[in-house]
């Protein structure tokens, strides 16, 4: 097992002419950590990854691996493993030759290459697949070969650029589990780029949420979900009902009474005018009778979708305000249908208040 490397970005930035692809960004990844860069396309996450791999020369700042400045180093000297979205397997080489490629570049003797290739194949559960050509394998198998190839020389840092992006949904979930297993086995630090929040949340120790070329928030999946630092983060990670707060005053019970732009009056904690409050769909109770929570509104179901294990309702509380409510499967016992008059409610403590 390899010891993972630490990774530090020190004010790394990248501009293409007048376009700032990456604003000066600083962050650190701990040895052995599974760290995800999550963001929409064009948010700068791939640019940041490119500065580590050596494909993108930063316009400013330094990239440090285990304290060593690698900013100007050419890619082939960095000893970093990388897995690409479309696998990037060499189509004219067999699976075994693909995995042997980095060992050959390192001029290892043949007697050492073969056993290491076999071990790498075993690790990704593809023992015996060595003589096959990449085109003869399924997408999932090809990505496992790419993993083996990137890990066979024991790099202390592995970069993954949307490695599951080309796979279909079921296989993707299966591979997530496999990747976590893989991370435990190899022990390397993993930097994982994705635009899929579910993928990032289920695998990573920590997530950096990227937007417009900068990191909006860095934290564990729980932290960024439960304490989003702004409305972009709240919306990007999971679903959120957002309220823009206009007028705020203390109501004497420790809560703040807020008028929202949606013409609702809601109770929240620590609110200020101009801020944004959000409530997660699963924190809202839906019932046919008033819910008795701090915030309670009558409404009408305008849409409902069965999702695995839960039901997702859209409830109109005012003409301009439709809330998303997620009720767990047991709630399905109370049969609610389209156009039903219902009551929704949540507590002031469920309101996450953040700057807009």
């Amino acid at each position: 097992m390899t010891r993972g490397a630490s990774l530090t970005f020190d004010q790394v930035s990248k501009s293409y002419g007048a376009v700032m692809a990456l604003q000066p960004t600083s962050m650190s990844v701990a040895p052995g950590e599974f760290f995800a860069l999550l963001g929409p396309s064009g948010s700068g996450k791939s640019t940041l990854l490119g500065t580590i791999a050596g494909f993108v020369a930063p316009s400013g700042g330094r990239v440090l691996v285990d304290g060593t400045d690698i900013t100007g180093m050419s890619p082939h000297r960095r000893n970093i493993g990388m897995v690409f979205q479309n696998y990037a397997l060499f189509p004219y080489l067999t699976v075994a030759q693909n995995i042997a490629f980095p060992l050959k570049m390192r001029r290892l003797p043949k007697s050492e290459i073969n056993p290491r290739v076999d071990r790498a194949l075993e690790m990704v559960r593809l023992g015996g697949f060595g003589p096959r050509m990449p085109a003869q394998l399924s997408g999932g198998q090809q990505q496992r070969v790419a993993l083996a190839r990137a890990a066979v020389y024991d790099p202390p840092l592995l970069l993954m650029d949307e490695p599951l992006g080309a796979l279909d949904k079921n296989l993707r979930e299966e591979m997530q589990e496999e990747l976590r297993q893989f991370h435990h086995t190899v022990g390397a630090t993993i930097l994982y780029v994705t635009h899929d929040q579910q993928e990032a949340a289920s695998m990573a120790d920590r997530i950096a949420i990227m937007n417009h070329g900068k990191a909006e928030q860095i934290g564990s999946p729980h932290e960024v979900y439960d304490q989003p630092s702004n409305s972009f983060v709240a919306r990007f990670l999971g679903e959120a009902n957002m309220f823009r707060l206009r007028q705020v005053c203390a109501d004497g019970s420790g809560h703040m009474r807020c008028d929202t732009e949606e013409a609702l009056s809601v109770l929240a904690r620590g609110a200020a005018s101009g801020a944004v409050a959000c409530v997660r769909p699963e924190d809202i109770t839906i019932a046919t009778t008033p819910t008795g929570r701090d915030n309670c509104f009558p409404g009408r179901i305008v849409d409902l979708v069965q999702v695995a294990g839960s039901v997702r309702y859209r409830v109109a509380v005012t003409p301009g305000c439709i809330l998303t409510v997620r009720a767990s499967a047991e709630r399905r016992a109370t049969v609610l249908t389209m156009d039903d008059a219902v009551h929704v409610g949540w507590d002031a403590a469920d309101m996450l208040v953040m700057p807009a």
Partner: protein
Amino acid sequence: MSGAMTRGLSRGGSALLLTLLGVFLVAPIVVVVLMSFTNQIYLTFPPTGLVLRWYFAAWNESRWFDAGWNSIQIGAATAFLSMVLGTLSALAVTRGGRRWTGWVASLVIAPMMLPHIIIAIGLYPTMLDLKLANTYIAVILGHTVVAMPLVFTTVSAALRGYDPALEFAAMTLGANGWQAFRYVTLPMIGSGLAIGGIFAFAISFDELMLALFLASARTETLPRLLWEHLQQTITPVIAAVATLVLLFTVLLMGAVMLLRRSDVEAA
């Protein structure tokens, strides 16, 4: 007019077009090949008898051999030079920066469109100034100007045909620039490069205009010697040599087709 009738007419029309094309493309070839076997001492069609006399005549004249050997040497050198320069420019245009690539691509392709006579008129005084006139180098350089665009085109297509991440992957795996080219780019563009090289050779092997301006008696190519013979003594030897050239070209095109097929199977 009913749809069926229109279809019938258009089908009849395309059949006619195909026949005409076939006649115009194939007929001259058939005429030349048949004339080469004539038993007369001048070019006749249709031949009154079929003999190999003119092939033996060509065989026994060393000028044809010398010219053939010159053509092969010049063709091989042209192909090699075109492959190197064509690959380099294709790499620059498809993998390089974005600003000048459109212009560079147009410039590289231009000689393919220009009449050879114009290139010849431009190159002739240049070669005189460089004291290269009447040398192999002059002919090879001239032919490379018109042959390189073909390599550029086939290699560019090959480069666009695969994910550049392959080269990035090679580099992260420890390959330096040269190794990434040698172990990834070259295998990926291999058949495109070979096809371009064969085209370049064929262009050089068949080229007359530049050879007229840039070659001399010592560097005489086969098309040039054929041209001279046509002007002086029209004997069926010309048809015999032309048929051999044709056969050689057909073999080259056969090689191209084999390469294309193996490429399709690999993909």
